[in-house]
């Protein structure tokens, strides 16, 4: 097997650890979200949800736990959407010429960037989980050690496929754009609907119908479903809303993410095949 993508991966990771401020801010930022937004909002939401009766025997999950999954998903989304921007800088600074003129198959550039972005998302997810557990996020509550490991692997699998999808997307846009401002514009335009038409921070059941429909097609919703299924459980209550997922639901969510990643890879591949740099 050609391992050229590891070369791209290696270089991107060098840069990741070399730019200290970027590294540290990308690690601290998700923790700050948890700390400020999470703790502030959970007081509100838990009070709202407190009066609603629940089915006896099912688990009531505090808001902090509910949104912990949302913060992982959101962080993965942002990191991945911006993950391709290095390609744009490489292009503008002439560094992409070396790579494009080399025999490295172009799909390996996409794979390498995908792999390094995925690694960054893993690191961030672990930080959020670790920090979350410290401040009282109830992930893996009552799980045996083996179950915890399986749950972690499940979360990682979902994060991996989801991040690859958006990294490929980001790579495709970056190689086609002229300026970072253009890329930033597109990303800002996209993050809003993706983020708010999802169940990251609040339940979608009270949304208007078309937004509910939209959220069903939103990869972010499927990522969050996966994370909650593995980290919290297949059935729970939060903010007065009942959540229940069968393995079939989760398989469907996973399939949607895989489909998304594969199609984004194909788009990126096409963009790279026709890419020219001057």
């Amino acid at each position, binding site marked *: 097997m050609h391992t050229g993508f590891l070369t791209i991966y290696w270089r991107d990771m060098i840069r990741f650890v070399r730019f200290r401020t970027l590294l540290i801010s990308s690690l601290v930022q998700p923790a700050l979200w948890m700390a400020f937004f999470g703790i502030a909002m959970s007081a509100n939401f838990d009070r709202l949800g407190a009066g609603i009766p629940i089915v006896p025997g099912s688990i009531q999950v505090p808001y902090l736990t509910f949104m912990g999954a949302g913060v992982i998903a959101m962080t993965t989304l942002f990191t991945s959407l911006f993950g391709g921007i290095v390609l744009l800088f490489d292009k503008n600074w002439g560094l992409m010429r070396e790579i494009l003129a080399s025999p*490295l198959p172009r799909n390996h550039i996409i794979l390498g960037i995908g792999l390094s972005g995925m690694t960054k998302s893993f690191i961030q997810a672990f930080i959020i989980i670790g920090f979350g557990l410290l401040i009282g996020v109830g992930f893996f509550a009552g799980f045996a050690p083996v179950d915890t490991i399986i749950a972690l692997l499940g979360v990682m699998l979902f994060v991996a496929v989801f991040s690859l999808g958006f990294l490929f997307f980001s790579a495709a846009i970056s190689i086609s754009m002229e300026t970072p401002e253009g890329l930033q514009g597109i990303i800002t335009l996209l993050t809003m609907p993706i983020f708010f038409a999802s169940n990251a921070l609040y339940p979608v059941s009270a949304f208007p119908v078309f937004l509910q429909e939209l959220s069903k097609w939103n990869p972010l919703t499927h990522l969050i479903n996966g994370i909650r299924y593995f980290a919290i459980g297949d059935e729970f209550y939060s903010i007065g809303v009942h959540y229940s997922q069968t393995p079939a639901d989760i398989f469907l969510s996973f399939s949607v993410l895989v489909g998304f990643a594969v199609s984004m890879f194909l788009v990126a591949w096409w963009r790279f095949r026709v890419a020219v740099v001057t």
Partner: protein
Amino acid sequence: MAEDGNIIEVKDLFHAYGDVQAVDGISFAVRKGEIFSFLGPNGAGKSTAINVLTTLQRLQKGEAMVAGFDVSKESQKVRESIGIVFQEVTLDRDMTVWEILEFHGRLYSMGREERRTRIEELLELVELASKRDVLTKHLSGGMKRRLEIARGLMTRPIVLFLDEPTIGLDPQTRIRMWGYIQEVNRQGTTIFLTTHYMDEADQLSDRICIMDRGRIIARGRSWELKNTLGQDLIYLETSDNDEAERILGSVPDVKSIGRKSKGLLVMITADGTHLLPVLIERLREKHIGIVTVNLKKPSMDDVFVHYTGREIRDESQEKQSTAPGRK
């Protein structure tokens, strides 16, 4: 279309950026094992031609073959056969000297051992061994250029493209670079280089194409090109240049006479040391005073001026004095 012994063949190549016809129909062939150069002023279309041959730009019109592969249809194969040193600095500012070379070796799937030994060899060669762990942003302009040349030599390609390789280097370093380039060439790599330095084309290359405004206006070996200007060149300033031109024009060994702002440039087909006294005598007889005389062998500069009707423009001077780089 490949003919034996040719490593690059280009036929009727055109390339435009919008309205700008950067390459305007060029055809040429580079033979296996030679050093071939494109000499021309800024904007002549040299880099554009290189970009097309190295598959960085799509071939718009014409045919091009590099190392036996069609540039437009077998671009992957072409990329496997070539190395390039770009005109602009293309070093990641935040990688070390060693990392730059390591990355390049990996891009070309060189084995680990081969990579390591080659990097050591090259760092010695370009005298950057002591800078191994320095970030490239902390190198001087000339060191960056040396590093880029080392990078181009890493993979021992079949054809090495050098786009203005010695831009921004001091004279000693330039001469050393020529040495490396010739050494790599001796080891079997065909070199395609572009330059707007006359002496570089002259000293380094086996064959030269003079390019101007997207076209090849002259080609041949350095001495062949110079010989088209005759054996020697005589520059004269006289009290009456018009009359002098008329008189000298009738001398059999005078090939042609060019007008300069203050004097005449006389191309002769005989040995100047013997002909010059004769010419001076002719002018004296007609009472034309001579202000300045200069006898010299034609240089590439003269060749360029002869074919284009103008000096290599002054921008090249500016480029020479500023270090290469985007910053």
